[in-house]
């Protein structure tokens, strides 16, 4: 049984999705989805425990030996990611479980749950597989599901957001496919571990450089790296609230993992950062993302859009950690992946809670909401502090490692810039806190907390940002192990 956990991780949500279509009953599929998410979380925890204790797991699909068959390969990096994705799914799916009919078109809930399960399946598949063509397939499964989910948002703008994401995402996915093709042409293999072995022989070929460029740009579109981020604010701000929370917390994180895998797992750190000098492009783009994202966030009038632009800035931190290509920098990037999933997921859930009571995502409508929904807004304060990077929250831990990485690299200019961009986060977080807590609520507003089924999941994520802010051994330990594995054991 435990030998087949890697495949169950993907097949469980994949099989549950068509089951939803057969059941055609909203509440039944709702609880089915929650059950699948929780089981997946259990499987992911088992896999992580096994990896930490015994080293990487290799699973051959159908018993076909790699590199001929498809291999599922789980090491510290993706075991960590599997836990993050399933954990966010397990928290977001039960969110408002007794109120869902109000937020999803009537009679369509089973379709919504099916799309949600497919999206989870795709994201888990990208994380778990060791075959690069398989990555493309899962990438498209998760993308198609997320276009569908986004289009279910309220109002017609959601449709346009979903459409432009579909165009951008398909171009990105096809770029990835071209890159895979060129790699296959150069090496004759699709298995990532095998690619890493065979590729150095063809590093001189121009097609390998072209393939690297296509893969990077393709993943960059999915990751919303700075100049390729146009789709993200619209998609996140018009999607249904739970979908924004889930996608903001997982989709970009999985793309970031894919970038890590391609850079360090396939091309190797010496080729990417030694021969091609990718950091010369990545560092300026990351820094630009940090500042452009934060400044754009300050000027937003819609709170979901504000959080979406802040996500672009946070992705900048992650790619900055990646471009340091040192254990500290990578640890910072990978820990930030986990931490940002917690805090952005939590913050989007807060927005969903307030949106449920107020029916508005506009910043000015939030005046005095702190007194009306104190528990909800307290969660926002904690999440916001974490976004800034105040000590005691997870945001501090990841920024600490990023600054440490920058200093160890001797980048004396980058370290202050990280701190400076955190100050910009203070501006946009404080603006919301000021409006929510220190302005008068409109007359006649009564104290009305969000329902418990919404408040509890929100606080689970926000509480986790506090817990992992103090107990850093678990997250940082695994992230460090992952960083060392990616760098091939070199310090």
């Amino acid at each position, binding site marked *: 049984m435990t030998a087949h956990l890697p495949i169950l991780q993907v097949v469980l949500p994949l099989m549950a999705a068509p089951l939803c279509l057969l059941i055609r009953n909203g509440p039944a599929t709702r609880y089915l989805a929650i059950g699948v998410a929780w089981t997946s979380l259990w499987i992911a925890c088992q896999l992580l425990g096994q990896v930490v204790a015994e080293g990487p797991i290799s699973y051959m699909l159908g018993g076909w030996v790699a590199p001929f068959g498809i291999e599922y390969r789980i090491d510290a990096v993706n075991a960590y990611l599997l836990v993050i994705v399933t954990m966010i799914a397990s928290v977001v799916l039960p969110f408002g479980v007794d109120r869902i009919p109000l937020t999803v078109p009537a009679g369509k809930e089973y379709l919504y749950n099916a799309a949600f399960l497919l999206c989870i399946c795709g994201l888990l598949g990208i994380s778990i597989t060791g075959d690069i*063509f398989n990555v*493309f*397939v899962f990438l*498209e499964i998760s993308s*198609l599901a997320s*276009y*569908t989910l986004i*289009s279910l948002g309220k109002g*017609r*703008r959601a*449709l*346009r957001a*979903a*459409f432009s994401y*579909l*165009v951008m995402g*398909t*171009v990105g*996915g*096809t770029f990835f*496919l*071209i890159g895979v*093709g060129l790699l*296959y*042409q150069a090496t004759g293999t699709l298995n990532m571990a095998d690619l890493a072995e065979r590729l150095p022989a063809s590093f001189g070929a121009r097609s390998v450089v072209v393939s690297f460029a296509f893969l990077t740009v393709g993943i960059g579109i999915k990751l919303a790296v700075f100049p390729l981020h146009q789709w993200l604010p619209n998609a996140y701000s018009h999607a249904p609230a739970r979908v924004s929370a889930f996608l903001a917390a997982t989709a970009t994180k999985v793309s970031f993992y894919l970038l890590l895998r391609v850079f360090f797992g396939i091309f190797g750190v010496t080729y990417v950062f030694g021969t091609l000098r990718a950091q010369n492009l990545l560092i300026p783009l990351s820094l630009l993302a940090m500042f452009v994202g934060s400044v754009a966030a300050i000027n937003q009038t819609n709170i979901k859009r504000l959080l979406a632009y802040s996500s672009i800035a946070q992705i900048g931190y992650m790619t900055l950690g990646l471009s340091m290509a040192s254990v500290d920098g990578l640890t910072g990037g990978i820990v930030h992946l986990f931490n940002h999933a917690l805090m952005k997921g939590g913050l989007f859930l807060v927005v969903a809670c307030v949106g449920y009571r107020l029916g508005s995502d506009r910043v000015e409508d939030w005046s005095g909401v702190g007194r009306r929904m104190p528990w909800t807004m307290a969660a926002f304060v904690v999440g916001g502090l974490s976004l800034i990077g105040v000590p005691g929250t997870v945001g501090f831990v990841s920024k600490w490692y990023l600054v440490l990485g920058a200093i160890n690299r001797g980048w004396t200019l980058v370290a202050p810039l990280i701190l400076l961009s955190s100050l910009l986060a203070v501006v946009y977080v404080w603006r919301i806190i000021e409006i929510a807590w220190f302005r008068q609520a409109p007359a006649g507003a009564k104290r009305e907390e969000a329902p418990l089924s919404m408040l509890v999941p929100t606080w689970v994520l926000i509480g986790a940002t506090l817990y992992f802010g103090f107990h850093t051994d678990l997250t940082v330990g695994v992230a460090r192990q992952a960083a060392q594995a990616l760098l091939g054991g070199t310090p």
Partner: protein
Amino acid sequence: MSQVMDHGIYWLCIVLMMIGLYTVISRDNLVKKIMGLNIFQVSVIMFYVSMGKISGGTPPILVPKDQPGAAEVVYSNPLPHVLMLTAIVVGVATTALGLALVVRIQEMYGTVEEDEIIEMDRTE
């Protein structure tokens, strides 16, 4: 000139790819955007299929060993073709979803021209 002739199939792929990408970027009509996306994907499919062809290669159907000349037979690589079956399915799914979204947009906005939609969103 030999550069062009030797890599004929690649030039064809690149030209198709650029036609597709240009259509996606330049057209305001959402249906045309989807068609551009389709052309773009087809160019990649052609690129993969051409990759599997080996000069003088036969289709990869095993020639029985006792047949004369069986030892010299060169087979084309079937793997890229198989990969493209998957990519075609993905392309069809994307097109279907894209067109479904266009239908919904047409219902909600009454137009499929992107510039008009942007204008309607702005004045709203």
